[in-house]
């Protein structure tokens, strides 16, 4: 599914939800009662909308931070692995090319297998084994010709790669509060739209248009937050190309 299709589906779903509720509420609500609701209900809705806006902003910022953390972790991990290969080569630790080959195999496993697993909040055992192989290759490399400096730098890069991989996996696994925040912002969005069913113009057409516009805007806000907060899933995931491009034999 493309992003455009997803965008249109969210809009259509939002319009359907808005109109369905409106039909039910307008069936029971007389024009006089609708007009009478506006002064008091409007004030209360204004207060409520501010609570919802605060929440929506919070969730958007958090979703953006999640995507940024994932992208940063990928950049740090691939940079550390790339540098590990360079340092190992230059320091005489990788005379037989085992470290470079292990890094290459690991990058392929991440792109081919782990990306799919991370979309579901998990990680790949295949990629994990290959990452262990990288670390084993480095720590068991024959060091007779190597410099102590290369060994020290390589150690730091290996630890940096471990830290970045952990960060990437933890971001994919999510936080225990994520579901609660999504449920809350979803519920507040629904309540916000429900307010609109019983507020607005006595003209059915104008009421339907305003409610639909509000609902579609809200839906797109949630769509944007969802897309940003799911960096490894959906129609706009981060690309594993940095892992595919890792150096190797």
């Amino acid at each position, binding site marked *: 599914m493309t992003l455009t299709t997803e965008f249109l589906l969210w809009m259509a779903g939002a319009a359907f939800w808005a109109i369905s509720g409106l039909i039910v509420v307008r069936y029971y609500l007389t024009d006089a*009662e609708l*007009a*009478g*609701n506006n*002064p*008091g*209900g409007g*004030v*209360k*809705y204004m*207060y*409520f909308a*501010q*609570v*919802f806006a*605060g*929440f929506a902003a*919070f969730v958007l910022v958090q979703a953006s931070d999640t995507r940024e953390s994932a992208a940063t972790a990928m950049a740090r991990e691939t940079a550390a692995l790339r540098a590990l290969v360079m340092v190992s080569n230059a320091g005489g630790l990788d005379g037989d090319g085992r470290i470079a080959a292990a890094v290459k195999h690991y990058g392929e496993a991440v792109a081919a297998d782990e990306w799919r*697993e991370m979309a579901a*909040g998990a990680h790949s*055992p295949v990629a994990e*084994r290959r990452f*262990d*192989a990288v*670390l*084993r290759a*480095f*720590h*068991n*490399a024959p*060091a007779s010709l190597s410099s*102590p400096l290369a*060994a020290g730098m*390589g*150690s*730091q890069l*290996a*630890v940096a790669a*471990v*830290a970045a991989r*952990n*960060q990437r*996996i*933890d971001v994919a*696994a*999510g*936080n*225990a509060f*994520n*579901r*609660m925040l*999504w*449920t*809350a912002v979803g*519920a*507040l969005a629904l*309540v916000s739209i*429900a*307010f609109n069913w*019983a507020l607005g113009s006595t003209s059915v057409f104008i009421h339907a248009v305003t409610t639909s516009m509000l609902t579609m805007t809200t839906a797109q806000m949630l769509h944007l937050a969802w897309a940003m907060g799911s960096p490894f899933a959906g129609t706009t995931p981060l690309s594993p190309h940095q892992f595919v491009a890792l150096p190797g034999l």
Partner: protein
Amino acid sequence: MGLDGPSGASSWLLAAGVPAIGATAFVVWGGVVLLMRNILGDPTPLFSEAQSGAAFGWLEQVFIGLIAATLSFGWVAGNALEHAYRAESSYLSGIRAAASGLPADEAWRLERAVSTYAGDVVSAEADGGISAAAGVSLELLVAICRDVVERGIGSPQTRSTLDTLSKLLPATRQARLSAINRYSLPLPPGLVIVPLGLSLLMGATLRTSGHVSDAVFNGLHAAGIAIAATVALALVLPTAKVAVPATLTGLASPQHGAVKEGR
């Protein structure tokens, strides 16, 4: 997958609590408003709509500001804790990885020490308390690393990794405990948020045209306030246990890691 991360039962429980509390607030407060209007009639003689709007508009703003501040605090504290946990689990993973460059018996000793410490952290220190067992297991882990370095066992790369990480681990533990301590607020936030939310509900019973409309509007308002307050409080109450990352939980398992496969 083997790692049971934070997205377990507690995650679903927290998520389910939100609509449950919202629906309860809607029914209870909407019901109260409907009942009172049926018994007392239109409350217009008590205070006008303009009076009500003027008196409680600013109170709602204070509530919104308080909720925003609480959410921000919860996020900042949560991030600090998350980073501290991640650093610690990364260093432990680094030690486990470095163990692959050691002879099998030394690697096994190190592997056991890592698992024991990670297990102690997850089981005894995730609630913010300081565990003597975790302290001892960390000392043992650091001692094993130092011993390997000083005796010159294994490859130079392994010794370099263990040397660096054994120096970093004690400080990382302190950073984690400090991050958890951020949740120890001088005043329970519920003491401010809950009375403010309740007074808002009582004060801002703005009237609409019919009894049912009135109950529905006030019920929706109550649901919003209850959901906002619940989420804000959940983020700042001592719920640090749910922040333990999947990678640290995985380290507590001795079956996990390179050493076992390498032996």
